[in-house]
């Protein structure tokens, strides 16, 4: 990842007090934009990425030369229509695509921060990205949107800035990371930290890389993004380029080969320490606790119109957890719509070609945008 210097980036000069107590300032936030901001500056949508996403929501990611992570949803004529809306997407702090993270150089030592990088939270990520409104001189966003960890950021954003987005789309997420979520994240972290190449997080200076640990972390996580039925239908017990079992530990089965591949391509684009920091931020996310056990209080002053979406086969952030957010919003008479989309693609559904999901969002955004403009609400 040697091209990080060429990325669009804004230097946030203002001090940001982190939840851990430390303060950061003069830190970079890498971002990408799609479409054009109109004259009224009322068509901006801030999209938050998930755990392993980045600012390249659409088009071709110049670092991986692959399609952006939300290519199905963001682009001309797509649900987040770049012919109509101005889409902003930033790399979260803690990330490894140009924003301030564990790979950033410590000016005091001239070495990467590694585990000297402060532990950050979803709240910190959102507060850092809030600076983008100033940067683009946007008074109020039309929408904030995101799936998974992106959805958590949507919830935190509306809670922190109740009057800064007209519409909020938290997708396949939760207001409080569950024990199961934490457990899977811990599994990933342990895989990384027990790789001898991790070197207590100092692998950059020692010119090593905990590739194996990071790949295992990715493999385990990847399983949680899919559904049992989806896996069974796609792979079943199919064998990988062989007609019989080989009585060894090579990848006999297609699913094994698939997971190994997912692990191997991931290590080329993602930083192990970033993985530790971002999963930690997710684990610490508990909006309900932030508001004394009453999630409704998180949204007390908001006039934002919510549209919450879950997926039938998502067992990582199941419908029940998404519905808890709906219930909390209804308890205070907030404006909320909710649908559970039927699909066997698991938690990953929000990233994939799920026509029902994509068309509903597209129509919802278009109609809501014109309704708001007509009525000036």
């Amino acid at each position: 990842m040697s091209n990080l210097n060429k990325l669009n980036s804004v230097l946030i000069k203002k001090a940001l007090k982190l939840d851990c107590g430390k303060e950061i300032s003069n830190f970079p936030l890498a971002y990408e934009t799609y479409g054009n901001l109109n004259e009224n500056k009322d068509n901006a949508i801030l999209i938050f990425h998930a755990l392993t996403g980045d600012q390249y929501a659409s088009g071709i990611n110049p670092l991986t030369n692959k399609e952006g992570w939300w290519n199905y949803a963001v682009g001309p004529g797509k649900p987040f229509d770049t012919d109509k809306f101005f889409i902003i997407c930033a790399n979260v702090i803690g990330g490894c695509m140009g924003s301030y993270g564990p790979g950033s150089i410590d000016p005091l030592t001239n070495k990467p921060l590694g585990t000297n990088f402060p532990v950050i939270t979803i709240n910190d990520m959102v507060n850092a990205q809030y600076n983008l409104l100033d940067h683009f001189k946007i008074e109020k966003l039309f929408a904030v949107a995101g799936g998974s960890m992106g959805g958590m950021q949507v919830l935190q954003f509306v809670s922190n800035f109740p009057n800064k987005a007209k519409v909020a789309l938290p997708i396949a997420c939760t207001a409080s990371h569950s024990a199961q979520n934490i457990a899977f994240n811990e599994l990933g972290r342990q895989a990384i930290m027990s790789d001898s190449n991790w070197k207590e997080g100092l692998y950059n200076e020692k010119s090593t890389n905990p590739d194996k640990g990071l790949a295992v972390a990715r493999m385990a996580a990847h399983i949680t993004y899919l559904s049992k039925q989806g896996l069974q239908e796609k792979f079943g017990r199919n064998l990988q380029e062989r007609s019989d079992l080989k009585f060894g530990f090579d990848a006999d089965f297609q699913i094994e080969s698939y997971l190994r591949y997912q692990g191997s391509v991931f290590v080329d684009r993602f930083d192990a320490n970033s993985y530790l920091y971002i999963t930690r931020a997710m684990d610490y996310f508990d909006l309900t606790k932030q508001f004394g056990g009453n999630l409704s209080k998180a949204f007390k002053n908001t006039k934002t119109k919510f549209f919450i979406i879950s997926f039938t086969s998502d067992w990582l952030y199941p419908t029940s957890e998404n519905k808890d957010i709906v219930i909390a919003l209804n308890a205070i008479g907030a404006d909320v719509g909710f649908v559970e989309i039927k699909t066997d693609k698991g938690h990953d559904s929000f990233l994939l070609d799920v026509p029902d999901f994509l068309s509903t969002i597209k129509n919802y955004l278009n109609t809501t945008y014109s309704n708001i403009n007509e009525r000036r609400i």
Partner: protein
Amino acid sequence: MKEEFKVISKFIEEKSRVLDVGCGDGILMEFLSKNKVVDIRGLEISKEKVKKCLSKGLSVIEGDAENDLKQFPDLSFDYVILSQTLQAFMNPEKVIENLLRVGKKVIVTIPNFGHWKVRLDLLFKGEMPVTKNLPYQWYDTPNLHMCTILDFYNFCNNRGINIFKTISLNGQSISDIKRSNLKYKNLISELGIFLLEK
């Protein structure tokens, strides 16, 4: 625009907060939000219909009135509407109770099982009636608890539920139902529309 929706919309004062329970495709919600500038929410059990509503930008929640009404606080809406859905519930009594808890006023529409065509079907054919408003066969009907206008009138009276106004709908014809013409209207109305308060 269905005659029924015109009647319902006349009941509703401008700028009120409305919950449409079993809102279907959201046609009434759209009409109300365009013409009455109401703050309106919907609850609908069918995924397909919820998606249609959301596509129109309507704030509709996928859910089931028998379980999901409890999340709404007491008297959190000026009006709660239940249009031709009461008969489909397992426990209509409990649903009405919840509607009256959530809404300051409640509008309930019922397909009238006391209509003369229904009575004649059963009397002469000896078969379960199939009509425009009740288009199902006995074996595939979602309607578990059919009632007549008179039944519902008595139901409300027995529970001390205030009936502010009752409207009879028969084709295009709209008329008031009063205590004096109740038995007659129970014979000629296809639909009964009730405006209630606890």
